[in-house]
């Protein structure tokens, strides 16, 4: 529920300005108290390190060698929780441990988590990660620095980015800014804002100079919210229950009377 | 009456029933695939591809090369002076441009820019799409085409320039 004074926030990830310095990854780990990892360089796609998001890394810069013109070049992408307007993870959680807040972040309340990992299955962007090694495991994902946002600050990644590839502000302003950038520099950007209306809209808007599939983004997602798919079945649950109960009750009664009638005519079965 | 193993006759009937059902399933699958193909064929564009469409798949990119390398510093009109130059003159002009600070002309682009400027003289009569048809020809065919142009009045192409222009096309196609 958004009160007039609370406007939802959003973030622009402008991949044309990203230089792959990974300061955002470090700031994120620092703010979220994630431990340092022992990783293996060149374990995945070249300089990309670590290979994937995990319980200790809530955001990741993807290193992609794209051939534009005569020679290949780096084009960077970024993976993080998209903080969807209609989050599939929150709809799938049976204990409401994941909730969408008014300011925009989808926050995780670890005291409610039972570790069923339905959110991991549900997320179309494959974001939530689990620490299976832990004896008291929980879900790990970007928090949008919800605590910082509430205090009026910007998320950690947006604060440290040296090239202003990450912008942060009210969602309406960010959408307008993203559109403005594409309109004023059409040769630099492809005319697509990733996250604008994918799965019903998200709070993280990505801009790019090359098609998003080439940067490791998940594409081909519907423009409608994912929870709609289960909603259409789950909302008829009470009706279904009442209908079935009535039908079965009626059948039992009919069959009971029929067998009673045949019992009274002849020997018991 | 309980038998513990079905007899051979029923084994035959099991196989027969299976074959019939599998056939039925495959028939339905086949029908759906045929309908899908019909749908796809029906949605193909009614116009066949022309030679220009095919040629456009592998463009010469003359305009792009000149745009990227020359026009930033001086206008395209200045390039008009190259129409009367010989191949060697063009090359030395571009080499001179290389020495100018801020020109940023890489070595391997030198050949392509010279070739583009040589080919630009064909724009006297032809548009880009027509020129692009040269990519579909073989080398002897290209030379023959250029010779034909020499024979046309007002083309401005001399017989001794044929080889140089043909070589320019080769360089553009080799990129």
């Amino acid at each position, binding site marked *: 529920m958004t009160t007039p004074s609370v406007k939802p926030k959003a973030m622009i990830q402008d991949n044309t300005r990203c230089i792959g310095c990974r300061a955002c990854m470090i700031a994120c780990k620092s703010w979220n108290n994630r431990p340092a990892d022992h990783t293996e360089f060149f374990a995945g796609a070249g300089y990309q390190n670590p290979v994937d998001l995990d319980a200790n890394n809530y955001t990741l810069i993807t290193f992609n060698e794209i051939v534009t013109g005569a020679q290949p070049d780096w084009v960077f992408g970024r993976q993080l929780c998209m903080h969807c307007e209609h989050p599939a993870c929150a709809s*799938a959680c*049976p204990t409401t441990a994941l909730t969408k807040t008014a300011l925009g972040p989808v926050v995780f309340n670890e005291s409610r988590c039972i570790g*069923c990992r339905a959110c991991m299955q*549900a997320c179309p962007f494959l974001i939530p*990660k*689990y620490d*299976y090694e832990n004896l008291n495991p929980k879900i790990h994902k970007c928090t949008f620095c919800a605590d910082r946002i509430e205090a009026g600050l910007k998320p950690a990644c947006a604060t440290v980015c040296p090239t202003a590839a990450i912008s942060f502000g009210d969602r309406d302003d960010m959408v307008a800014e993203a559109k403005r950038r594409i309109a004023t520099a059409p040769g630099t950007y492809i005319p697509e804002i990733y996250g604008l209306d994918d799965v019903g809209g998200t709070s993280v808007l990505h801009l790019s100079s090359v098609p998003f599939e080439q940067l490791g983004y998940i594409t081909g997602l519907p423009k409608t919210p994912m929870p709609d798919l289960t909603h259409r079945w789950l909302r008829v*649950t009470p009706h279904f229950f009442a209908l079935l109960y009535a039908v079965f009750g009626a059948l039992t009664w009919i069959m009971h009377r029929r067998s009673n009638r045949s019992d009274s005519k002849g020997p018991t079965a | 009456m309980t038998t513990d193993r079905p007899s051979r006759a029923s084994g035959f009937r099991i196989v027969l029933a299976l074959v019939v059902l599998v056939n039925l399933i495959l028939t339905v699958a086949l029908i759906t695939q045929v309908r899908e193909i019909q749908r796809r064929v029906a949605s193909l564009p009614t116009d066949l591809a022309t030679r220009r469409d095919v040629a456009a798949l592998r463009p010469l990119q003359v305009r792009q090369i000149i745009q990227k390398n020359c026009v930033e510093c001086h206008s395209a009109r200045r390039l008009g002076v190259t129409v009367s130059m010989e191949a060697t003159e063009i090359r030395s002009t571009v080499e001179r441009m290389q020495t100018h600070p801020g020109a940023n002309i890489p070595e391997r682009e030198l050949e392509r820019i010279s070739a583009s400027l040589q080919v630009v003289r064909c724009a006297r009569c032809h548009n880009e799409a027509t020129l692009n048809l040269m990519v579909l020809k073989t080398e002897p065919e290209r030379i023959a085409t250029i010779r034909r142009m020499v024979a046309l009045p007002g083309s401005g192409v001399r017989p001794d320039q044929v080889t140089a222009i043909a070589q320019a096309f080769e360089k553009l196609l080799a990129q």
Partner: protein
Amino acid sequence: MNWRIRLTWWDMVLLAIMALGVVLAVVRYAGGIRSVANINNAYPWGWWVGFGIMTMIALGGVGFTITLLVEILGRHRYHALLRPAVLMALLCYASAIVMLMVELGRPWKVWMILVSWAPSAALYEVGWCAFLYLNVLVLEFVQVPLEELGWGRVLKVLRVIYIPIMLLGVTLSHLHQSSLGTLLTLIPHKINVLWWSEQLPLIFLFSAMMAGPALAILEYLAAARWLGFPPNIDMLGGLARIEAWLVGLLLVFRLGDLVIRGAVEAALSWTWFAVSFWVEIGFGLLLPLVLLMMPEVQASRGGLVTACSLVVAGVLLHRLNVAVFGLRVRHWETYVPSFGEIGITLGIAAGAVFVFGVLARMLPIHEELPPTVASQPRATARAAAWHGARSVS
């Protein structure tokens, strides 16, 4: 109640498997999930969910299917199958809950589901319905030992509420069996096109209904062999004919759904997914359908065992295909169940079979058994005791 049971060598084998399961479970609790399981971030649900929870709950459908057949549709010809079916369902659901205690990251918090309000989550509905249904099953089954113990007053109460709670149980089963399918409709981009469908809830429900009679037949024949009574093959033949209809309808539904969704091309391509799909359809639906339609198979023990085992295996393969194998992941991500995972699920399954075997010898679960095996004075009331209001008349 027959307290003097002799444990056979088969019981010993089951106890050994259970012990292995317990040891592995201790390792899981002491060392975390990673110490026994291969599930990872790409495959958050693996063998434990695919087999230990989804298949167990599907097989637990034997309870509501036979109850529907005998009590609601009034086909009392099959009433001999009712008690074993309810006990099997009770043990299947109990097994699924035990599996959940191992599979969840934080099983000590599972009660959170009961104090939350999350109607948009399919798992929420599954959790609540399964919890309620387990209680229904307990209330239904507890009549048997209470009879033996002679707790007449409690029994009277139970018999009065029997019809309403029996109806509740059957209705709840329809809901949560289909909700397991609803859960997976949320991820069309992650489940292979061969298995994802908007009709997944119905597919899950119908396959659970199909698994019911198959499991009932298998149990009946196994009990006839192990407890030593002649099986009523005519009754089984009748049930086999009903089962043939259920298999046939599911086959048509699955293939029709495939055609309507336009996924036939994927089914006709040379991929492992297509192979698994056709194995599931061919051995799990097509072959049993043909077998169950033949009178010779309907009258033959071996034929029925073969056909029904194929049906049950088909349901297992379907659950695994939808929830695990058919998951689309990035090319470097992989999952193979570890020995730890398989060991724990086998331990739980062995536990269920063991408890069933013990209770079948202690209590009058099977009507065909001679009265000396069951306790004497209740023999006459036994047949009537299950049928709630009917016994009162």
